[in-house]
């Protein structure tokens, strides 16, 4: 056997990473929309575009953390929505803003702990565990603590409003929050020991355990971190529209989040991709959504486009990272 065999190296277009391919597509779309669509290349529209996808991007980063570890969190939008609504409802009373935020943080922490427990210790597949826990937390919240469908943000809570509507030196705060969250996550994933462990866990959970990584506690930490980042995204949403409509939990937002993550090149196989992938995915979806809105497409037509893009991304993912690498074994 030769020292180096090149049989795993894909050729041609596939040699590029998925982020690069996606960013090229974004660039192409940008040019096409800029030429064809009136009002696309205005400062106002572009700022609007970036602002509107910031919260999606933050949720994407949250999802990326667990997907890189070969997990999945379908309860992300539910825990984000419930925690944000609970925090806002507290703000409607005399509770101070930090206290309300801490309570919201507590909710997502418990949610992450619960998901991690189900997945790591009870050993339920992440997909189904989080599907069930999302239903559970929303139902529980609606029947007990939450007063109505919509939690209206009181006008005097400047911090949350600033998160959604403020600007620093002309740059909208949601964008800054997205950048901050992305930078933090990227730093954590690439420069710290827990970050390495998350990649190792996603690459090969068996090898990770054998190498001495405490895989189960780590799984729990991953889901807690993911939910916490999601909560930040929820606050940005609440700030920008002045409240939170809990119906978002029943909506298709979770699919958009998955779309952003998978399109960008974070493989569902785990261990691959980075925050840059989320940025690329968010850029693509942002440009698409904006263009489709200007084109006056209704939500169902948009769903068709999103569905096709998601399918395309999954096929590409499958081609780039085949799930079952052919292992030829000798019998005895």
């Amino acid at each position, binding site marked *: *056997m*030769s*020292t*180096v*065999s*090149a049989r*795993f*190296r894909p050729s041609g277009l596939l040699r590029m990473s998925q982020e690069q391919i996606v960013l090229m597509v974004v660039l192409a779309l940008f040019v096409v929309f800029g030429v064809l669509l009136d009002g696309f290349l205005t400062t106002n529209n572009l700022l609007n575009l970036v602002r509107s996808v910031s919260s999606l991007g933050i949720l994407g980063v949250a999802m990326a953390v667990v997907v890189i570890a070969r997990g999945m969190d379908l309860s992300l939008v539910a825990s984000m929505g419930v925690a944000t609504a609970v925090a806002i409802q507290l703000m409607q009373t005399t509770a101070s803003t930090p206290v309300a935020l801490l309570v919201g943080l507590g909710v997502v922490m418990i949610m992450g702990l619960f998901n991690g427990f189900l997945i790591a210790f009870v050993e339920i597949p992440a997909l189904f565990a989080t599907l069930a826990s999302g239903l559970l937390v929303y139902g529980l919240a609606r029947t007990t603590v939450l007063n109505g469908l919509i939690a209206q943000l009181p006008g005097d809570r400047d911090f949350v409003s600033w998160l959604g509507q403020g600007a620093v030196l002309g740059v909208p705060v949601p964008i800054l929050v997205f950048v901050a969250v992305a930078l933090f996550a990227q730093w954590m994933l*690439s*420069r*710290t*020991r*827990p*970050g*390495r*462990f998350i*990649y*190792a866990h996603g*690459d*090969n959970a*068996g*090898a*990770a*355990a*054998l*190498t*001495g*990584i*405490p*895989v*189960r506690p780590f799984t729990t930490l991953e889901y807690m971190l993911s939910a916490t980042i999601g909560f930040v995204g929820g606050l940005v949403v609440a700030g920008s529209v002045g409240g939170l409509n809990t119906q978002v939990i029943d909506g298709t937002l979770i699919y958009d989040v998955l779309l952003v993550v998978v399109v960008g090149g974070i493989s569902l196989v785990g*261990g*691959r991709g980075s925050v840059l992938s989320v940025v690329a995915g968010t850029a693509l979806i942002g440009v698409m959504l904006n263009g489709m809105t200007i084109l006056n497409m209704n939500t169902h037509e948009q769903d068709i486009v999103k569905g096709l893009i998601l399918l395309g991304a999954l096929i590409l993912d499958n081609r780039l990272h085949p799930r079952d*690498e052919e*292992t*030829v074994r*000798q*019998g*005895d």
Partner: protein
Amino acid sequence: MSNAIADAVGGALESTGSALVEMSSVTKTYRGVHAIHEIDFDLVAGEVHALVGENGAGKSTLCKILAGAVQPSEGQLRICGSQVNFRRPHDALEHGIAMVYQETSLVPTMTAAQNIELGHEKLLTRFRSLNIGAQQLLQSMNFHVDPTAYVSTLGAAKKQMVEIARALRSQARIVIFDEPTASLTPEETLHLFDVIAELRAAGLGVIYVSHALEESLQIADRVTVLRDGERVATVDTARTNREEIIRYMVGRSLGSGPERTVPGTGAPARKRKVLEVENLILGNVVRNMSFSAYAGEVLGIAGLIGSGRTETAKIITGMLKRNRIHGGRVLLNGRPVRYRVPKQAIDDGIVYITEDRKLDGFFETMTVAENLYLGHLASRNGRRSWLLSRRKREQIAREWSHRLRIKAIDADAKVVELSGGNQQKLTVGKSLVQEPEVVIFDEPTRGVDVGAIEEIHQLIRQLADDGKAVIVISSYLPEVLTISDRILVTRFGRTVAEFSREEATQEKIMYAAIF
């Protein structure tokens, strides 16, 4: 009785003695490595032909080729005189070749009758006629299996009977048994032998693959011995004995011991006892394992696949849990330990190096350097810092790539681009970075090129000379003999023999490993 079998399989059969299978110069290579090499094999109607050989001798590959599951690279296969070219298992089945797997190929959620009928269903099936047909077939072979029972509720022996019935239902003329007695009790084994004798009397050809030599000699008319993918001998059982077969299997005549390529440190004085395993028990896989490992010594563990060696290692390092009550004891430096996860064992200085590096050995998305560094990060030392250090990573990569002679274009090469030998060295390195006191190797040179085998052996020797307690689990006898100071033989989850380096020979080990 033999008439019943003949009826069951449809009557018209070749006359006894005519050739059913003729294989000539059949070769199968996987990525340039011979699994079997130019094998001639034949089977005549009305005989039981046993295939014996050590682990990895090529028995399974030969059977898979016959059953159409694997395509030969070269050579010819003739069934009943006409040349065939099987592309899938279905082709083999159409030529009347049926393989009885250990117990794995039944659908557990279906009844025995449904399993027997599987693949032969008519468009509309009446349960009544299905069950009656299966009942008659089972009855004709004197199998007491309820055709309406779900397979998941049947014991190992009854599953085996259903397997056999299914093979005969498909009008098989050639039946291949792969390790049929592995999960049977002695009485069930005897019953199986009666059935095989009936198949033979009915004019079928039977190929019998087994680790258990005594069985093969008892049931077979002829025995073919394979070693390292080559046919060593085919002998009539009437004119041979156990000693001769074992000689064929290990490939050397009695007396000439193997050459030791790695210089040992001479007769090892009993050194400090590091690890002590007492009466370890896990279900019926590990039934009673006891041994000790000493600092500065290589302990080889020989035995057949499935004799509980890997499981023992996994219990010691916390990947499997031994029985809670009467599960035995593991003592590390005299202190009883019981690990829940490998992390705890690693913190105490015990590492296990996997037998299947692709499954749980290395991280394929990472580079050589990142893999080695991850081993460090997960160790007690590495856990002190939260931030990664590029300098530390490069230092570790340089040091260990050099010590293990990992040949990659550079430390940033991805692991999948390495050869098997270098991947194995990397997997070893990732564990050695953690500064262990006890190192357990499981099949350290499986799928490794020849040059790297030598280097890995030297590394193992070096570890022992550095004062570590080294345990090597290996199914390859020359390897065990070459590197071990002391050799332990396991059989059916028990340690059955122990040899010093001087007294060990391949024959003695095989004798102890096979019953």
